[in-house]
C-alpha cells in the first residue's frame, strides 16, 4: 500500500497563528474549524484573544477564504491552498487588496473530498455515508457498517482532478506537508460539454437555468465578484430582472461570467455552494479555456501580465462597434 501523504500538523498552525497575534502582525486570522454536520468544514474568523485551539485542518473541504477579504479589511492572516492563492494573486493584480496587509500561510492539500460524488459512485445517498477517511492513498467510505474503497477520481471534487497549482504561488510561510497534485495526469470530466454541439449545450443550460433560484450564493462567495454594487441590484435601468425566470437567470449567470473574466481562477466555490447543483464550473472552465486560447492569459498566476478585460489602448480595433 502506498504511503500516506504527510499530514498537516495542527500544532504547527496554532503556534504560527499564536505568534502572528502576539507579534501584532495581524488583526484577524482566516482559517477553518470542523463543521457542525458530517463531512463539512467551516470558515473560522479569529481575532486576537479568541480561542485559537478551534482551528483545525481536516480532510473534507476547505473553502477558498479569499472572498472574506472583500469584507474584512485591515491586517489579515489567511490560510490558502494552491488554488486559493491564485485568487489572492488576481485580487492583488487588480488592486483590490494590498500585499502588506496580508500574512499568507500556505496549506498543503490532498484534494477536497466530495461526499456527493462518493455517494453516487456507491449508488447510495450522501446521508447514507457514515464515515469517509483515507487509508494510504486510498479513500474508504463506510456505508451500512461496511467499508468500501473508492478511487480518488471517484472521491475528489472535479476541480481537484485537474489541479495545476498544488503549491501556493504567493505566501509568507508554508505549513509543512506535501504540495503535490492528488492525481496525475490531470483528468477532464467525463461529462465535459466542450466538444458537444451548440444545440446540445443550449438545451443543457436551458434546463439548468430553469432551476436557479437567484440566491446569489455563487456571486457572494466568489472572490472575483468584488463590485460593491452588483449589476443585479441596479434598477435604473433594470438590466436583469430579480425574477428567477429562465431568461433572466441566463442573463445573470452569463453576465457574471463575463464580468469575472480575467479574475476568475476556477476555484470552484460557485459550484460547491449552489443549492440547486448547477454545474457552474463548466461555464468558468470554458471561459478560462477561451481566455487562454485567445489572449494567452491565465488569471492569478502572476502580477505582470496585462489584464485582457481591463486593458485598453487607443489603437485597439473597434470595428465591432456599429
Amino acid at each position, binding site marked *: 500500500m502506498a504511503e500516506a501523504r504527510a499530514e498537516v500538523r495542527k500544532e504547527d498552525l496554532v503556534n504560527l497563528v499564536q505568534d502572528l497575534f502576539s507579534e501584532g502582525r495581524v488583526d484577524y486570522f482566516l482559517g477553518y474549524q470542523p*463543521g*457542525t*454536520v*458530517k463531512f*463539512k*468544514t*467551516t*470558515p473560522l*474568523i479569529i481575532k486576537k484573544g479568541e480561542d485559537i485551539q478551534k482551528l483545525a485542518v481536516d480532510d473534507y473541504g476547505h*473553502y477558498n477564504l479569499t472572498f*472574506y477579504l472583500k469584507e474584512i479589511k485591515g491586517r489579515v492572516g489567511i490560510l490558502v491552498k494552491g488554488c486559493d492563492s491564485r485568487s489572492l494573486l488576481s485580487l492583488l493584480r487588480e488592486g483590490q487588496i494590498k500585499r502588506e496587509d496580508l500574512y499568507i500561510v500556505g496549506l498543503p492539500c490532498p484534494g477536497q473530498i466530495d461526499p*456527493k460524488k462518493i455517494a453516487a459512485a456507491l449508488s*447510495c*445517498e450522501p*446521508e*447514507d455515508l457514515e464515515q469517509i477517511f483515507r487509508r494510504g492513498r486510498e479513500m474508504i467510505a463506510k456505508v451500512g457498517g461496511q467499508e468500501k474503497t473508492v478511487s480518488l477520481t471517484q472521491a475528489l471534487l472535479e476541480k481537484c482532478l485537474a489541479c495545476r497549482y498544488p503549491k501556493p504561488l504567493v505566501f509568507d510561510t508554508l505549513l509543512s506537508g506535501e504540495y503535490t497534485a492528488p492525481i496525475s495526469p490531470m483528468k477532464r470530466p467525463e461529462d465535459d460539454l466542450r466538444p458537444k454541439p451548440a444545440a446540445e449545450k443550449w438545451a443543457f443550460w436551458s*434546463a*439548468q437555468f430553469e*432551476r436557479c*433560484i*437567484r*440566491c*446569489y*450564493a455563487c*456571486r*457572494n*462567495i466568489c472572490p472575483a465578484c468584488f463590485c460593491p454594487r452588483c449589476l443585479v*441590484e441596479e434598477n435604473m435601468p433594470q438590466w436583469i*430582472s*430579480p*425574477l*428567477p*425566470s429562465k431568461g433572466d437567470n441566463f442573463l445573470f449567470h452569463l453576465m457574471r461570467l463575463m464580468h469575472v473574466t480575467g479574475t476568475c481562477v476556477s476555484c470552484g*466555490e460557485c459550484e*460547491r*455552494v449552489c*443549492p*440547486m*447543483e448547477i454545474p457552474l464550473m463548466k461555464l468558468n472552465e470554458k471561459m478560462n479555456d477561451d481566455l487562454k486560447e485567445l489572449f494567452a492569459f491565465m488569471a492569478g498566476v502572476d502580477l505582470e501580465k496585462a489584464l485582457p478585460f481591463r486593458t485598453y489602448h487607443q489603437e485597439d480595433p473597434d470595428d465591432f462597434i456599429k
Partner: protein
Amino acid sequence: MYLKISRENLRKWLTELKKGAEVLVPEKVNGLWTYTPFQGQDPLPNFLNSRIPPKSVFFPSMQALVEWKSSGGSVQLRSLTPAAGPKVLFGLRPCDARGLRILEPVFSQDNQDIFYGQNLSRTLLLGVACRRPCPGSFCEQMGIDPQAAKDFDLSFREITQGFIVKVITEKGGKLTGGGVFFTEAAAKEWEEARSEIKNKNETLSFDLEKVKTRVGERFTDEEFWMRVSLKCLNCGICTYLCPTCHCFDICDLQIPGQGIRFRCFDSCAFPGFTKMAVHNPREEKWRRYRQRVSHKFNFFPQNFQNVACVGCGRCVVHCPVNLDLRQVLLAISG
C-alpha cells in the same frame, strides 16, 4: 381509523388517483430530491427530504398575479388564478407539513391570499413518518415529532410489507375509500410501526422555551449579533430553502403592449431588502441576521402563535459557510 397498504398497492392507488388529480411524489431530478408528477414509479425511494421545501408547491419562487395588455391609451387588466385542479402530495415529512400550517395564517389572515390558500385547500397532504434523522435537523427540539401525523390528511408509517396508515381528516379518508387498495388495520399496528429515530445529534440541543424568552432580551446586544453573523455570506439560501420563510418581492415584466406582474422570493438577508431612497435601516449584516432570528423566534410568534422554524435542517446543511442556527440558538438560550 387505521388502514394497511402494500407497496405495490400504493403504487396502483396513486396511479388511480392520477386520473382525478395531479399527484406529486419525491423524485431525484438532476441530483436533487424534489416533488414531481408521479410517473408510476416506486413512490418512496431512498428519500430523506426534498431540497426545496414543498412550500414551493403553494408558494412558488415565481407566481404570476395579474397580466395586462395595453394599446392606445387603454389597459386591459386580467387577474390570474392559482393553478386549477386538485393535487395530491405524497411523501411529505412532518416538519414540512408543519411549515405549511405555520404559513397558513400569514396568507389567510386579513386579506386572504388565494394563491397560497386555494392551492393548499385543494391539495391532499399524504405524509410519511421519518425513520432517520436529516443531517443538521432539530425538529424534535422545535416540538415536532418525526413520527407525527396531525398536519397531514393521511399519515403513513413504513413497515416491511408496506405501510400502516392513519386517517387524520375526512377528506383524507374519502380518498382511501372503496377498500380496493387498503385493508383495515388495528391501532396496535400503527403504534408498533412507530420507529424511534436513531443517531440523533445531542451536542447542539437547546431549550426552545429559553430561546423564546431570551431572544427579545438579546435584541440590543449588538456585539453578540456581530459575532454570530460575522461569517454570513448575505446570500438567500437559508431563506429560500426554509419551509417557513415567506418574504416576497413584487415585480413587473413588460414587453411592448403587454406585461405580467409577478411575485417572487425575496430574502431579508439581502442588503437591498429594506433599502429606501433615503436610507437603509438594515445596512449592516448583523442587523439583518438579528432580524432573521428575532423574526422567526420572537416577532412571528407574537403575531401568529407559532415559532417560524420547524428544525428541518436545510439551512444548517446548505449554508455555504455552515453558519449553524443551532449554535446561535444555543448561545441565545445559554
